[in-house]
């Protein structure tokens, strides 16, 4: 009791340092930054020449860029207490559609590359709309809807291509975006990822749209009673995720110079793991884009570090697994503490739209 009083008093003092700094320091992301830095120090000690090289850092950020873009969208979804398993397949679908359209137009040149970008974004948005509509209006749990569309988006991509990857990617796109640098050794891809992360961060943390995203994840039924158009908001959140996957699909065309039909079966889980490691709670209402960026840099840094240190890269999966479970454990402890101090469960438990105890539309907890 006294402890919570003191905590509250501290909060009141801390009240003055509100805003960005405060939300960053409060987040689990801060601890995660320390983990990332610690890893970097460790790998530097083990093999300073290799790890501290420009080449090494360049590989890390290039490898993380597309995941970070997907992670931005998934953060919105998980903040609403939803889940999106379809992103990897939507990425494939968007890249296939984009490659097909660019091929039919003649493949080369900036104009065609631009058309390809629009096609990829629209293809992603379409799947986001389908996901959002089914979750919000048909009331099917997000886990099931996106599991379904995960299969559908990949299946349709395979039907269209016969399962054979497409290689018609405009050279300008590959040269400038795939391998190009904006200046010096700063990859274009990383700059695009940074821009999207910043835009996503502004949208989530500074606008009404972001606020409603948190409100939904915090208390869906209260949001509805307050007059927020919950269905509309949910649909838009899944569209954001779909668009991010679409952009990811386009950029992966640029990076790999081909579609990667068979190469994205675990992309969804890798991204969700990074988002969760970054402090976004599967129970909704909590999460930051900053945390997501760090959470997605960790697996990539680990892999790179292991390779450099001569450790088998397979260990990366093991360590990421430990981090993932650890992150959710910490979130659970924090939620339990919050519940104890307020003496009441703040809301029914919900993971990925699979609500335990009561369902979304009839969550009148009295």
């Amino acid at each position: 009791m006294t402890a919570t009083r003191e905590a509250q008093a501290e909060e009141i003092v801390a009240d003055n340092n509100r805003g960005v700094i405060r939300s960053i320091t409060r987040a689990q992301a801060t601890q995660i930054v320390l983990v990332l830095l610690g890893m970097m120090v460790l790998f530097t000690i083990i093999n300073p020449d290799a790890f501290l090289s420009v080449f090494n850092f360049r590989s890390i950020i290039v490898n993380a860029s597309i995941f970070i873009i997907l992670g931005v969208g998934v953060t919105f979804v998980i903040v609403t207490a939803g889940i999106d398993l379809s992103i990897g397949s939507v990425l494939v679908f968007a890249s296939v559609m984009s490659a097909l359209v660019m091929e039919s137009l003649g493949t080369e040149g900036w104009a065609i590359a631009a058309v390809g970008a629009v096609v990829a974004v629209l293809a992603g948005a379409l799947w986001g709309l389908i996901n959002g509509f089914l979750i919000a209006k048909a009331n099917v749990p997000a886990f099931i809807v996106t599991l379904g569309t995960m299969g559908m988006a990949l299946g349709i991509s395979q039907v269209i291509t016969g399962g054979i990857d497409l290689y018609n990617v405009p050279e300008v796109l590959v040269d400038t975006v795939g391998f190009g640098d904006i200046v010096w050794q700063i990859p274009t891809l990383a700059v695009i990822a940074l821009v999207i992360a910043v835009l996503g961060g502004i949208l989530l943390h500074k606008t009404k749209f972001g606020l409603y995203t948190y409100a939904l994840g915090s208390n869906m039924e209260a949001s509805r009673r307050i007059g927020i158009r919950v269905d509309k908001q949910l649909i838009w959140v899944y569209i954001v995720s779909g668009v991010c996957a679409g952009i990811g699909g386009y950029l992966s065309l640029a990076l790999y110079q081909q579609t990667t039909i068979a190469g994205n079966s675990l992309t969804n889980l890798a991204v969700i793991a990074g988002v969760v490691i970054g402090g976004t709670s599967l129970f909704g209402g909590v999460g930051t884009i900053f945390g997501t960026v760090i959470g997605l840099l960790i697996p990539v840094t680990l892999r790179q570090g292991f390779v450099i240190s001569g450790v088998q890269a397979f260990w990366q999966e093991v360590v990421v697994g430990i981090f993932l479970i650890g992150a959710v454990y910490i979130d659970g402890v924090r939620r339990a503490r919050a519940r104890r101090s307020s003496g009441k469960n703040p809301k029914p438990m919900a993971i990925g739209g699979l609500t335990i105890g009561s369902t979304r539309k009839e969550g009148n907890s009295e």
Partner: protein
Amino acid sequence: MDARDDGSEIGMPLLEARGIVRTYGQVVALDGCDFDVEPGEVTALIGDNGAGKSTLIKIMSGTEEMEEGQIRFMGEDVTMSSPSVARDLGIETVFQDLALCPHLDPVRNLYLGREVRKRGPLGWFGFMDNKMMREKSSDAFADLGATVRALSVPVGDMSGGQKQSVAVARAASWANKIIFLDEPTAALGVVQTQNVLDLIKRVRDKGIGVVFISHSMPEVLGVADRVQVLRRGRRVATYQAADTSLEELVGAMTGALDEEAV
């Protein structure tokens, strides 16, 4: 009848509910229930646990659907098809479960769904005038004498009474015709309870119709102008608070009065 500024007639109830029926599976929560809200009056809505009070309020605030019955607002039939309908009519509600977002701070909760946009282009993109909302919220809480001091702590980290204060302040800030309060004092300390009761009177004096649910008869008799009693999903009695007594109210709630009459 004379006409008031807003075109309604004097003596006309703000809201009339007639013959409301609502069932939950086997349970008949409301069984042809009537209810009236008068402007500038505090109506206490009382009844035993499970009498249907919360259900009635949810229906009148558009958050729950009714199966049968009619609602008239200022003399016109209305369909409370969604919470926004009630909101647009100037009806606000403090729900029994408070309907707050635990991860958001009191300012966010107070303004949820009514955020003030920044002026100019930033506002078009959904940027909010946080400074203004913060100042206004601060006033709203001060007005209530509420012990909500930390305006950027998530509501979920607050005490039960503080949460209740946030919910009451929210409803009182936005209501301009009717405010429903479903057990708003249940978690409050003595001082805070008195603050809410004072607020209720202030809101009433602005001409707003206040509906107040409580299980505390002294509170009811202290603040209400009228008392409407619900039993098993029906309104069984209406009293002027000045002319009634604790015994009479308890009798009406439990049905003892009827049995005596029979």
